[in-house]
């Protein structure tokens, strides 16, 4: 039957009775509408939160579909260290996940680890070769920032050399994070994959100027900034490997070993004397790791002292729980005031109780000592883990620094031509300073740290940023237009509206509360005996189940709901050669007939359809 308008020339042309000879397709009811639906993917809170710039919702859908290799490649576009992140990232994605209110955040962290661990090709994805012929770039530091930068450059065809001060590559991943959190094999494999792109890592090459600062790792002072003049660009990613001092009497005593130093020795397999009653001072991951290593090294009693309350503790929640599970006692609202020694050896730590006062410049409530509350804790080893600082002694006057960090702009560029910086050395926690903080956004010359700053994921993001900037620079392009330092840089971005989808925009009719899948874990009794990995990850069934809980906020995942409820049958599934997936418009509206009723937009479980004024489109 015809779909066109029918005109009868005469009665003889017409049927004898009122009988149809055509369809209503002639009637373009699209002329009725004054608003029209538009498919528009928006930003889910997880993507918004990820400092490494991963497209989480995209790869989770691939896990749902069982396309693990595709998911891995998708992550690797943005981040080469997925096995690492799947274990050590503090997962701000989970903190913002909209599913938190429907049975618990998606275990994105564990899912990333699952994807990383799937059998399959270990190749890193190719990129378009944009490197000018023979271009060489130097990277200083083989931590996550340096590795990320080297990867993004090498896949574009650059010849990259990483200079690493320590005897082994990995930076904090190697020396700061113990193997029960990050197995050596995982780290080694991911570094090896980057090296397989042609990246050279030269260990034992420490960038510096005489004299070196006390407490910094030993190594040959073989490299100076001037030595890198032959490279077309330099990326400084030296991290923060210096420990902050306790600042109390007695801290020079034997038996006081800074946390970073302690962990470095343990992780490099160097001999370290462990006490029997150990006090760890601090509330970050370093403090947790130091405590747990002490337990594994044989300490009988390990106590963590933290000057604020549990609520303010910067360490990852699960880590705190695992630490306590291993028998470590945490004392809150207490700070050491003196290391007590006898015959030059540590015998006790004098402490004072604290109370919380007004928030400080970082936003956390300042601890105030309670006078007369001193008490003594008998210990034979003290491990301060109060924070990290960068060793910037190698800098010359041409490179600006402020509050203990290298100053960079949105492109990661320092004040010196062709020198970039990233990772903790540029975006870690800044040193406390007499200079009042500037409130400007943008370059991190002061003020609060960007969200996620100081984490592995942030470092990876910053390395990627600098790599893209270096690529532009060496191709004679402008460095304008980079997203601000708090925003993410993507290599392969979908066309997505920057609006972040809040929980209120999720259509709860389509979801019920389902509990989050817990990750398997070795028992405390078992795990304190060795340095084997504590968390066991997901099985395939658990991973699929967990990924299926993802609401796919703001991202069409072809649930068919719009198609199902259109009263005018004008939503079609597209016949596309491209494989379907979030971000690929799998449906199209037939605007010839769409009346703009808005049922699709109302029902879309995940806010992926907007209603817009028709006149805007009709111009």
């Amino acid at each position, binding site marked *: 039957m015809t779909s066109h308008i029918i005109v009868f020339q005469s009665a003889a042309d017409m049927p004898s009775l009122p009988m149809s000879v055509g369809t209503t397709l002639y009637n373009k009811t699209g002329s009725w509408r004054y608003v029209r639906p538009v498919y528009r993917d928006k930003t889910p809170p997880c993507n918004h939160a990820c400092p490494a710039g991963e497209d989480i919702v995209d790869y989770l859908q691939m896990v749902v579909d069982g396309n693990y290799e595709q998911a891995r490649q998708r992550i690797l576009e943005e981040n080469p260290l997925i096995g690492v992140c799947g274990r050590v990232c503090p997962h701000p994605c989970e903190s913002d996940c909209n599913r938190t209110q429907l049975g618990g955040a998606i275990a994105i962290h564990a899912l990333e680890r699952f994807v990383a661990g799937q059998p399959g090709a270990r190749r890193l994805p190719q990129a378009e070769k944009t490197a000018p012929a023979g271009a060489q770039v130097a990277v200083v530091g083989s931590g996550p920032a340096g590795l990320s930068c080297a990867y993004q450059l090498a896949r574009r065809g650059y010849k990259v050399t990483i200079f690493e001060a320590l005897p082994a590559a990995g930076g904090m991943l190697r020396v700061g994070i113990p193997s029960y959190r990050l197995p050596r094999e995982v780290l080694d494999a991911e570094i090896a994959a980057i090296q397989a792109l042609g990246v050279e890592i030269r260990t034992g090459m420490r960038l510096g100027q005489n004299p070196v600062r006390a407490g910094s790792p030993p190594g040959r002072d073989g490299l100076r900034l001037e030595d890198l003049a032959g490279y077309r660009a330099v990326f400084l990613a030296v991290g923060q490997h210096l420990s902050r001092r306790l600042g109390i009497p007695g801290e020079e005593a034997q038996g006081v070993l800074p946390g970073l130093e302690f962990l470095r020795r343990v992780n490099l397999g160097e001999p370290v004397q462990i006490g029997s009653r150990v006090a760890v001072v601090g509330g970050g991951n370093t403090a947790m790791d130091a405590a747990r290593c002490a337990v594994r090294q044989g300490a009988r009693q390990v106590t963590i002292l933290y000057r604020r309350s549990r609520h303010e503790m910067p360490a990852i929640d699960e880590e705190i729980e695992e630490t306590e599970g291993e028998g470590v006692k945490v004392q809150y609202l207490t700070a050491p005031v003196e290391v007590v020694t006898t015959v030059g050896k540590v015998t006790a730590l004098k402490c004072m109780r604290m109370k919380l006062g007004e928030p400080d410049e970082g936003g956390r409530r300042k601890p105030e000592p309670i006078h007369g509350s001193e008490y003594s804790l008998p210990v034979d080893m003290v491990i301060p883990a109060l924070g990290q600082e960068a060793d910037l002694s190698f800098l010359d006057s041409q490179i600006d620094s402020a509050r203990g960090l290298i100053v960079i702009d949105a492109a990661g560029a320092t004040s010196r031509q062709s020198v970039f910086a990233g990772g903790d050395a540029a975006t870690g926690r800044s040193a406390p300073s007499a200079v009042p903080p500037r409130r400007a956004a943008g370059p991190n010359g002061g003020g609060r740290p960007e969200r996620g700053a100081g984490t592995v994921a942030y470092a990876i993001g910053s390395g990627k940023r600098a790599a893209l900037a270096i690529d532009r620079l060496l191709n004679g392009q402008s460095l304008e237009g980079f997203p601000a330092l708090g925003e993410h840089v993507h290599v392969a971005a979908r066309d997505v509206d920057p609006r972040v989808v809040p929980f209120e925009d999720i259509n709860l009719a389509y979801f019920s509360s389902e509990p989050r899948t817990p990750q398997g874990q070795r028992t405390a009794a078992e795990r304190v005996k060795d340095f084997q990995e504590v968390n066991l990850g997901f099985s395939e069934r658990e991973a699929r189940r967990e990924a299926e809980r993802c609401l796919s906020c703001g991202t069409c995942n072809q649930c068919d709901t719009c198609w199902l409820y259109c*009263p005018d*049958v004008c939503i079609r599934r597209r016949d596309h050669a491209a494989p379907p997936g979030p971000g690929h418009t799998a449906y199209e509206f037939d605007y010839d007939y769409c009346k703009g009723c808005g049922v699709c937009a109302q*029902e879309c479980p995940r806010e992926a359809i907007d209603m817009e004024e028709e006149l805007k489109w009709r111009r």
Partner: protein
Amino acid sequence: MSYDIPDKELMSPGHVACPGCGAPLAVRYALKALGDNTVLIVVASCWSIIAGPFPYTAVQVPLLHTLFATGGSTASGVKAGLEARGLKDTQVLTLAGDGGTFDIGIQALSAAVERNEDFIYMCYDNEAYMNTGIQRSSATPWGAWTTTTPVKHPKDQPKKDMVAIMAAHRIPYTATATVAYPEDLVRKVKKAASIRGSKFLHVLSPCPSGWKSEPAQSVLLSRLAVETCVFPLYEIEHGEDYTITVQPRQKVPVTEYMKLQGRFAHLKPEALAQIQENVDREWDKLVAKTGNHCGH
């Protein structure tokens, strides 16, 4: 595909339902369930117009328009004619509004199902004579505004319990359904199609024009009707065995449903409380009839 719904469309766009109307959704799902070996009889109602004027049609099955009071009788004749031609498996689906079912058409419907004629009768209920401009029917809920039950004198009588009337005829299958639950509707239509004899489906079909609601919210309203227990989804076999087919996840207060509809805007708190009480009582009675058994 995420929903257990047949893929093939037997209804085209270009039909002239109001934007957001529930009626084309009801027919779209019913035709998907039945397939193209179906004859659709449309009793005078909105669908007489929705289907498109001569010489066009909006569905890919034969469609017979018929007089207001003749839903049950025309279907009886059509079925007899098709069977006489040997087309014993062709489904006959009569589609009527609440007017053509509860009021002017009730006689012919009662007679047809008393004879246990082999057809499916689907009433799409928008709770008033909508095609002629929102006049009250016996399906209009208590308290609702319509043009013949204006705000100063809203509908004084409760909604007629058509399902009970049909069940009292002891027909093989009676069920309620609504457009927010297409899988449930499709399953029920398919089940009806598998039974010889009279099958009655009462489908709540939101009407933005007559309910004074947002077109975009028709599916939402249909869902709320179920979740508030205003319109429970259940089926009755042989007039005796009751099964609730969609259990509300949690019982939502009726005000959540009614506040989205202008036709209830004039109701005072006492009236709303009365309505809540009525709904609760009727729900409890229904649950008791099921022997507290919920299927599917």
